[in-house]
């Protein structure tokens, strides 16, 4: 086998597959996962079908498709945020608790391979869950309104987010000797990444520059959360109501960006039409509002011109690298932390 294959495929992966798939827990987890996702899809479809009876254009199949897709990807992300830390937070600490980790350390497997093997085994299960959800997502195409690239981008964001949470879980698992504190910390970190960053955007929104010719964007840290890109992918529109101070005008934003202008015709019929966003658009109450974002691109800031999902994937991959390095450093039985100078093993005479 070539060195790359050896590095990627190590005996831990095969052993973990065997151990995991021989218990009743894995098939149960897969069944519950599919049932939850399918159940939610069915519930949303029923709700939309019910509400469409009172709507004059809500019954369009494309709207069904888009709505279903958005809720499914968000729910799938939340489900994985619950599952992934549970899969990885015990990966190393349970070996410590079972006192089998020393037996691995005395073999030829380097510490990094142990970490990598554990990660690969856990993440393959997450990947399996993602694959299981594909048939449910394919139902969305029956309704239309969603392109294949949207599905691919949403799955990529979900998979990378799960990988990030998985790596954070593994890093926690190596840092703590016991599984319980490792799990609690991993869930805390998962909440911070998913929800904490959004909370940050709400508490410390970007102050828009009234003279700016580009629309303000939420603080860069909020892109860490996969929720924002998933919404932009699902709605195929910008984030307008989040992360910008006074970024939510009282009137005038549509899902597709820009503003909506309404007028009353001499015949007394009120009609509304979308106005593409320009440098400064006057709101209906006469106050100038900052430029509104349109499209799925980040309008300004650190990631100006990027797609939201690109920023999220980049930031999360950076966290993955940090967590991987930290995990590998903390795992070795003899920790040689870079900030701790290693004393030479001197001989007393």
């Amino acid at each position, binding site marked *: 086998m070539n060195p790359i294959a050896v590095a990627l495929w190590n005996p831990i992966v095969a052993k973990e597959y065997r151990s995991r798939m021989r218990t009743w827990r894995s098939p149960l987890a897969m069944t519950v996962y599919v049932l939850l996702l399918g159940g939610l899809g069915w519930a949303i479809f029923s709700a939309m079908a019910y509400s469409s009876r009172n709507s004059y254009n809500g019954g369009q199949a494309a709207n069904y498709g888009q709505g279903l897709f958005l809720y499914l990807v968000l729910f799938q992300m939340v489900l994985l945020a619950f599952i992934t830390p549970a899969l990885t937070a015990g990966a190393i600490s349970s070996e410590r608790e079972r006192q089998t980790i020393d037996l691995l350390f005395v*073999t030829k497997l380097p510490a990094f391979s142990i970490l990598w093997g554990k990660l690969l085994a856990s993440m393959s299960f997450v990947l399996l869950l993602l694959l299981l959800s594909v048939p449910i997502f394919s139902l969305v195409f029956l309704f239309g309104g969603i392109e294949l690239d949207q599905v691919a981008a949403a799955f990529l964001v979900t998979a990378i987010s799960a990988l990030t949470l998985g790596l954070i879980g593994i890093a926690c698992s190596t840092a703590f000797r016991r599984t319980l504190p490792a799990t609690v910390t991993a869930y805390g970190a998962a909440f911070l990444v998913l929800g904490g960053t959004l909370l940050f955007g709400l508490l410390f929104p970007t102050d828009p520059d009234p003279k700016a010719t580009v629309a303000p964007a939420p603080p860069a840290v909020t892109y860490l959360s996969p929720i924002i890109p998933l919404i932009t992918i699902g709605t195929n529109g910008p984030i307008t109501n989040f992360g910008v101070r006074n970024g939510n005008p009282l009137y005038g934003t549509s899902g597709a960006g820009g503003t909506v202008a309404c007028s009353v015709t001499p015949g007394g019929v009120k009609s509304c039409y979308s106005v593409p966003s320009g440098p400064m658009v006057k709101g209906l109450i006469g106050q100038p509002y900052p430029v509104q974002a349109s499209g799925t691109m980040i309008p300004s800031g650190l990631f100006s011109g990027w797609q939201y999902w690109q920023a999220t994937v980049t930031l999360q991959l950076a966290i993955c690298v940090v967590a991987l390095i930290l995990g590998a450093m903390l795992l070795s039985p003899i920790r040689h932390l870079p900030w701790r100078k290693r004393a030479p093993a001197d001989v007393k005479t």
Partner: protein
Amino acid sequence: MISVEQLTKVYGRRTALDAVSFEVPKGEIFGFVGPNGAGKTTTLRILAALLEPTSGRAFVDGADVSLQPARVHERLGYMPDFFGVYDQLTAAEYLDFYAACYRLPRARRKKIADDLLELVGLSDRRDQAVDTLSRGLKQRLCLARALVHDPAVLLLDEPASGLDPRARVEMREILKELQKMGKTIVISSHILPELTELCTMVGIIDQGRMRATGPVQDVIRQLTSGRRLRITVLGQKEEAAAVLKPLPMIHAVSTLNGAIEAEYEGDDATAAAILQTLTAAGIKVSGFSQLEGGLEDAFMRATEDEQ
């Protein structure tokens, strides 16, 4: 094969090992004796490159445990004082997993697993789940695991703890077999009679300090001053003791369960002379035997200063 020089390990304010030194030549079985908390496991973990010494050095087959841990792991089979077993794996899969961790080619792994299972007498259990094996069988499987990469040195931490007498005897037979195969074995234990029979060398450790080390009989001789006689007489215990005490070669005389125990300095001729003196004094001797100095005795002597 194993060389330990001035090994010291300090945990915070507690010194777990205090300048421990010993040597184990190739092919020897070294018994590492000491009470709980004496530093046996710490020493073995340092030898297995799982723990960094505060100071001092240790070598396994020429490889420095601090600087060349990978080379040490190649030469060393380590069996900790607990059963490291996984659920949901059979005995054969368990061995195959560790053989793969040692990067042994797939083609060889099956044969190695079969051979080792046969060596430890688990051939008929190869497809049994590891977590359903009894304690004794798990212990044997763990020994087989330590042998998958055919190491020259075996470190066994309390291999007999918690085993029933039959399992202990079986474990001892396996270890003798391994010695015949030329392995150097270090066993830590507090079950002393077993070590006396099995080990060729011994090291007595207490409170982090090496009290005595060397070939078993040397250590026993060194620590138990002189040899001992057990004498039984027909009702004349006091008279016999009175005859023995003034003799120059006798160190101490005590009566124990109706028999007299006398410690003396000298050889078999001296013992014969003592018997002659007793019979000449009209003492009716019904039993006269030399007591083997035991490791237990040596151990008690070595550690009694600290008690």
